[in-house]
């Protein structure tokens, strides 16, 4: 277990700023997933921590020690790559044993540890095969084995599951969660997949354009996105983000969006300006209830997923999604009435994009009551 600290770390490639003054402290034993669009710098963060890439400035500390001068091999870190990077000319056993060999562990001991690990990963029968002879899932486990065999203090995963098919992915996700539970090591896990990010993490770091957007528990991220970017990025289908205005009358907040007027009741916001407040309102699909309610909308698309159905609604100029359980009998073009769960709405400053925090709203375990 190790604490990992990024202290205003910057990295620039030619004219691309890959990572921009990253400050991030990861507590020992966390399982952090990094989410963010392609090219936002996630891999660069991992690679700097591993020592494969040198930061331009800033310090990286593991358990309080600056690791800047250490080679990757000296940092006591294991990494699983998106492509697995298995050594194609070595057998599975040789692949897993490689880190031990490089650390001078004796042959017999190496064999013993590889065998024990293979048992626990259920790849014992594959030990003599070459990577090319394995299925994707098996390769994935070998890559894991190679990372686990020397019990490093930090594990790094760079989109390890992204090349697997859906079924296998679900299965491996379970195994990784189990691995973290069992070893209790600090892990950082980069992914594109929200389901993975949400289900595996103790904490999520959301990045965009080289900058950290939010760092918090999955519930934090989902229920209290720190800015418009995080709000729009996390959740499937995405939160509808609609520009509007907040007006205050006797401490009652009145929201105007795309022709609709919503009386939000008595609400108090931090940093409230005088007069009208230009805001972006975020509405998650599950916070739209269909059937009756004050508002009317036309259904412009219906996506049945089996256990639930996503309706796309057009209300005035606003476009938003609604999640309904099971199959839906509605048809495209139909008009329905809907309501919003007002206390689950999210507000962001139009200019800065930052979340507008409410005062006096009880937050219990990230779940607004």
């Amino acid at each position, binding site marked *: 277990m190790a604490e990992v600290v990024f202290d205003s770390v910057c990295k620039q490639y030619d004219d691309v700023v890959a990572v921009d003054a990253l400050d991030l402290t990861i507590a020992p034993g966390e399982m952090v997933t990094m989410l963010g669009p392609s090219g936002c710098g996630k891999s660069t963060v991992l690679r700097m921590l591993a*020592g494969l890439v*040198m*930061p331009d400035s800033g310090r990286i500390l593991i358990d309080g020690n600056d690791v*800047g*001068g*250490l*080679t990757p091999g000296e940092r006591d870190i294991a990494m699983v790559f998106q492509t697995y990077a298995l050594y194609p000319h070595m057998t599975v056993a040789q692949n897993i044993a490689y880190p031990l060999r490089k650390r001078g562990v004796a042959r017999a001991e190496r064999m013993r540890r590889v065998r024990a690990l293979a048992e626990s990963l259920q790849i014992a029968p594959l030990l003599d095969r070459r990577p090319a002879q394995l299925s994707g899932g098996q390769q994935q486990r070998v890559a894991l084995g190679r990372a686990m065999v020397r019990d490093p203090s930090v594990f790094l995963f760079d989109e390890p599951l992204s090349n697997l098919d859906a079924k296998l992915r679900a299965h491996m996700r379970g195994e990784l969660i189990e691995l973290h539970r069992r070893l209790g090591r600090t892990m950082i896990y980069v992914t594109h997949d929200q389901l993975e990010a949400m289900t595996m993490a103790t904490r999520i770091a959301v990045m965009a354009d080289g900058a950290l957007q939010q760092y918090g528990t999955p519930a934090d991220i989902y229920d209290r996105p720190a800015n418009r970017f995080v709000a729009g990025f996390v959740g499937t289908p995405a939160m509808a983000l609609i520009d509007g205005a907040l007006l205050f009358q006797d401490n009652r907040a009145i929201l105007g969006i795309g022709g609709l007027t919503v009386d939000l009741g008595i609400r108090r916001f931090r940093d409230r300006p005088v007069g009208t407040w230009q805001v972006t309102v975020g509405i998650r699909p599950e916070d739209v209830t269909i059937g009756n309610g004050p508002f009317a909308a036309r259904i412009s698309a219906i996506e049945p997923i089996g256990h639930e159905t996503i309706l796309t609604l057009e209300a005035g100029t606003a476009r938003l999604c609604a999640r309904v359980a099971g199959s839906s009998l509605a048809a495209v073009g139909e008009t329905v009435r809907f309501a919003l769960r007002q206390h689950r709405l999210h507000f962001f400053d139009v200019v800065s994009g930052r979340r507008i925090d409410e005062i006096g709203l009880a937050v219990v375990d990230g779940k607004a009551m």
Partner: protein
Amino acid sequence: MAALLRLRPATSPQALARRDALLGLLLIAPTVLILSAVIAYPLATTAYLSLHNVYTPTLATEWAGLSNYRAILSGGTFWHALATTLVWTIGTLALQLLFGVAMALLLNRNIRLRALARSLVLFPYFLATVVAVLVWRWLLNGLFGVVDHALIALGLIDTPVDWLGTMPNAMATTIVIGAWKFFPFVVIAVLARLQTVPAHLYEAARLDGAGSWARFTDITLPHLSGVLGLVALLRMIWDFREFDLIYLLTGGGPLDHTRTLPLVVYQQAFGLNQMGMAAAYAVLMMLLVLAMTIPYLARARGRR
């Protein structure tokens, strides 16, 4: 080297990066060393000699200034040899590329005993040029040459052909034998590259209505362009400098119709014992090769 690598631990990322760069330089050092020793020295010597009158066996030198260059550029030999060299280079290079690519395409298909065919086709490249030329002279021999006799037996000709003694036969034969000798070089490189063309592209093109010729011109050829560029460049340089093959095959004849620049250089240096002239010719050749190379390299760098 080992001692250099075992530097004390770096103390900062910058030191680590510097150590890395040093290691990189260390790894390229043997290359630089060998090439500069074996190339830079002769290069400088050649440049020096080209400004002198030099008797080859003693290398006794006598300052001549630019007179060698003046003599070369004002005489007809150089320009004629240059034209000959260009005809030879372009002709044989074109044939090598044409035949090399065609053969690679054929060998890339699933044919019976493909591995054997692939080995056999590389054979001309294995053969020492000296031997290859002698074999060809034997094959084309005016009296006992199996080629003439086979053609006569097939009724294609009725008297032996003078393959090497008259124009344009001599140039054509030389070009063809050059192509035969060196086309496997193209085959090896192209064959390797062909295996990396994504099969999906061909399928997409078939769906889009492309026939086999269109698939070749629209997909295969553009994919080969990179490797063909490098191969063509190297072969062009090498063909331009080719000495053994032509010297042994025609000696430059008939008259001077196949006497390319390297033959002229050789004759100047060792036949006429005028090393200074030879060096001046060589320097001019080098400038020509440079002029042919630079556009390619510039383009290659631009692409990267």
